[in-house]
């Protein structure tokens, strides 16, 4: 599903040049659950941003579902993103001014899904995530665990092929963290590909494969299954 080859990303300021990704290459197959680990500054987040088409690589190739997407323009990237990729963040990133229902509805609005169908799909996913009873609450009225479930619901509402999770349990206690990991595992078992950046060895054990990075390069790959 994903094939990156020789991927490079360099951040430059007037005086300093920081290599974030250094000729990185790996593949992720459809239906895989991959954890990316490594110390702070090793390039995990940069990798996730490029995989999520939020950032451009400076060099190399990024093939998504057989198409080279490394140098797509903003419009194409946004279109590919909203149809294929769901995001789960450490800090949930819900819009404070929107209710639970409206937050989850947002990707469908950008997809152009009509109102009645939107309602049906949002209610279905909220039901599945067991937060239907909180549909009219605002994010600040929810616990961290509930907020992350809303974020997961929002990530999956448009049935993406790929979910990118950036430290999804980083702001949660262990109980809520385990719940979220279970949700991701369930989604993966239903066929969604998941790439998760994490510092947590515990969380990484939910995945099939761990890619360990250092200084923008892959250092090891562990297959857990």
């Amino acid at each position: 599903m994903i094939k990156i080859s020789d991927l490079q990303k360099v951040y430059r300021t007037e005086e300093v040049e920081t290599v974030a990704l250094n000729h990185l290459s790996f593949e992720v197959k459809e239906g895989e659950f991959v954890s990316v680990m490594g110390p702070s500054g090793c390039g995990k987040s940069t990798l996730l941003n490029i995989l999520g088409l939020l950032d451009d690589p400076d060099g190399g190739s990024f093939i998504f579902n057989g198409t080279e997407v490394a140098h797509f323009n903003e419009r194409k990237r946004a279109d590919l993103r909203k149809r294929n990729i769901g995001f789960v963040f450490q800090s949930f990133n819900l819009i404070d001014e929107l209710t639970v229902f409206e937050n989850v509805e947002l990707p469908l609005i950008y997809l152009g899904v009509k109102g009645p169908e939107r309602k049906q799909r949002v209610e279905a996913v909220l039901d599945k995530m067991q937060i239907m009873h909180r549909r009219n609450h605002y994010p600040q009225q929810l616990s961290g665990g509930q907020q992350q479930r809303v974020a997961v619901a929002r990530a999956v509402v448009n049935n993406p092929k790929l979910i990118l999770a950036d430290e999804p349990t980083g702001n949660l206690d262990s109980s809520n963290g385990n719940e979220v990991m279970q949700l991701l595992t369930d989604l993966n078992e239903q066929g969604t590909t998941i790439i998760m950046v994490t510092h947590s060895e515990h969380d990484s054990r939910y995945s099939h494969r761990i890619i360990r990075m250092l200084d923008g390069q892959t250092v090891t790959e562990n297959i857990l299954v």
Partner: protein
Amino acid sequence: MIKNYFKIAWRHLQRNKSYAFINVAGLTLGITCSILIFTLVRYHLSFEDFHPDTNNTYRVVTEIHHDNLSYTSGTPAPLGKALRNDYSFADKIACVRVFGSPLITVNTGKDIHKFVEQEGLALAEPEFFQIFSFPLVKGDRSALANPNTAFITEKLAHKYFPGQDPMGQSLRIGNSMNFTVTGILRDIPVNTDRSQEIYLSYVNLKDFDSSLAGPNRWSGINNNMQTFLLLKKGTSPAAVEKLFPALMDKYYADTRGHNVFRFRLQPLSDIHFNPNYSGAVEKKYIWALALIGLFLIATACMNFVNLATAQALTRSKEVGIRKVLGGMRMQLFWQFIAETALIALFATILAFCLAQQSLPFVNRLLDMRLSIPFIGDTWLVIFLVLLLTSVTFLAGSYPGLILAGFQPVLALKGKLNQQHIGGFSVRRILVTGQFAISQLLIITTIVIAGQIHYSRKTDLGFNKEGIVLLPVPAPDRTKMDHLRNSLSAMTGVEKTSLCFTPPATSDNELDGFSFDNRPKAEPFNINVKNGDDQYVSAFGLTLIAGRNFFRSDSAHEFLVNETLVHKLNLKAPQDIIGKSIAIEQGARGTVVGVLKDFHNNSFKGEISPVCISQDYRSYAVCAVKLNLARAGGLLPAFEKLWNNTYPEYNYTYQFMDDSIADFYQSETVLLTLIEIFAAIAILIGCLGLYGMVSFMAMQKTKEIGVRKVLGAGIPDILWIFGKEFLRLLVLAFLVAAPVGGWFMHRWLQDFVYRIPLNAQVFLMALFSTVVIATLTIGYRTLRSALANPVRSLRSE
């Protein structure tokens, strides 16, 4: 999608109430003023636009070429007839003579009622009603061709003859002439300068003004004796003007008027605006107001852009999330535009209500009858839609582009900073712009106020304090003497004088004259004033040569002013004493005294050569000089005496200083408007400034904490803010001062006697904005400076 935009916009505003208040308040004030200014501008521009063929309608006006060029909206009375007989360029020609406010007596059979109509009355030829659209609802326009017939408006018909048929009723004008109502006009619209509501037969002109009415009275021109033409289609006014020299040759052969008068055609659309011909308002003032309206909208939009851009950082997370979820740059841009449109729409609705509420005040202030109809006014609707769209895009585009351009990764990580929202530079430019607009308006206010104060307080060369002007409605010598003698006998009355006009008036009579034994008439006109032997002492005029005249009934002795002596090229005032003057209208006499120059015009006009004589037939005013310490209760006594003397007339009076103030009425109104708009511009600016300084204080919380920990005192912290705004103020001043100076220099050119445009004016403007800015930001900056650094650093 749109619903989602408005939903989030509404909730965002609810969560940021102070931000919403500042923006809505600023825009509301700006839009309110714009609606009022639009209504005012439109009102003036709509003058005379309802007549059947406005583009082909002209007024014949006269240029007077003496040693200087002057203008009059009047023409000789025979001109209309001559044009009709000699030329065929016009479809219609009509002569009109307007008179002030004569007494109108209505005898209903049971009672006698007396009225004075402020708009006066007009004597008009029937064709007048084919040139102008003042339709008759009863009667036929040809009826006005008959002598002693009258048309009145429906309003006056109801007023004079309530419950009766006005047709065939009688009106007595000026206690001397009877007219029969033969037509009822539809009420006169507000947007015309032809505001008279009574039209009398032009055939009766000789009864009102015998000096002008003769068939050969080509030398007499009165401002209010006017000739209107409706040119034939395809006839250009220039072609018509080319025919006038031949007309001059025919009717002014061998007379002074041949070289002095030049007839011109003035388009109907120019009449309301041309100051040369006593237009009501100059177009430059209309455009100045429109410019101020634009300034106010601009300053409100600047506020919006400033605050919205500053606030953009707080919206970065939302923008990041939307982009991650597939939102594109243009979608985000339109989202912010929709949000701005919501605020602007709310502000426009509020502004519309506020404009309607403030309209009575504006109407009182401007003495107008403006209206802002709620529905059915297409132009207002178009204006509001355009205004709303412009404000939305002016205010929303820049912050929208900034927001939509956020990198999602940086936005989500909260790593956006000042540089990502255009740095301080854009907002500095906008604040500078706001300060500049405020300073420009303050400079304008100071200069206009200064000039008006100067005009009112400067020694005019005569005394205007404590003088009451009572009308003398009829040239009845016995009654005049009775009035004067009775007034003189009252305790508290120092002097009384019967005269034609006071020393300074807007109603000056100019006439040609010959001096001494010079063979030709002088090449300039003289301002003829009539007054009795008390005129000099009652008005405190100063005699510098010769003597005052002895009391007399006829004009055989003259007093003149210094300007006349100079214009006659005489070396000293004494040189004119004993010389004769022959005024064209007929009076001839000897100069017995020379008066020190006094301002006989407003400060817009130079002091004219003046000649004063005694002629009781022209006396229209009795000036009463009061001893202000003993004047209590005198006004009711004047009224009683006057009513006893002239029981058939209505009593009025005016203080001389009010009459002088009337010279500067348009400037006073302009000043009041600019004061109000300047105050609003400053208020909008202050709202924005407060918002900006609040945002800066929030941004600088950590910096202030660190500085205080390192030993900075409160003044040091205050200076962080102070220097920023002071710098912008000075920068704004560098823009506003030359622009304001240029505008005001041009405005002052209208005044022959004017204040100097010195540095003090500009420094006052700078100083006042510094004070206003300090007061605005003072509280917020002081609160930041006094904050406990431990708390601010802990929160970081």
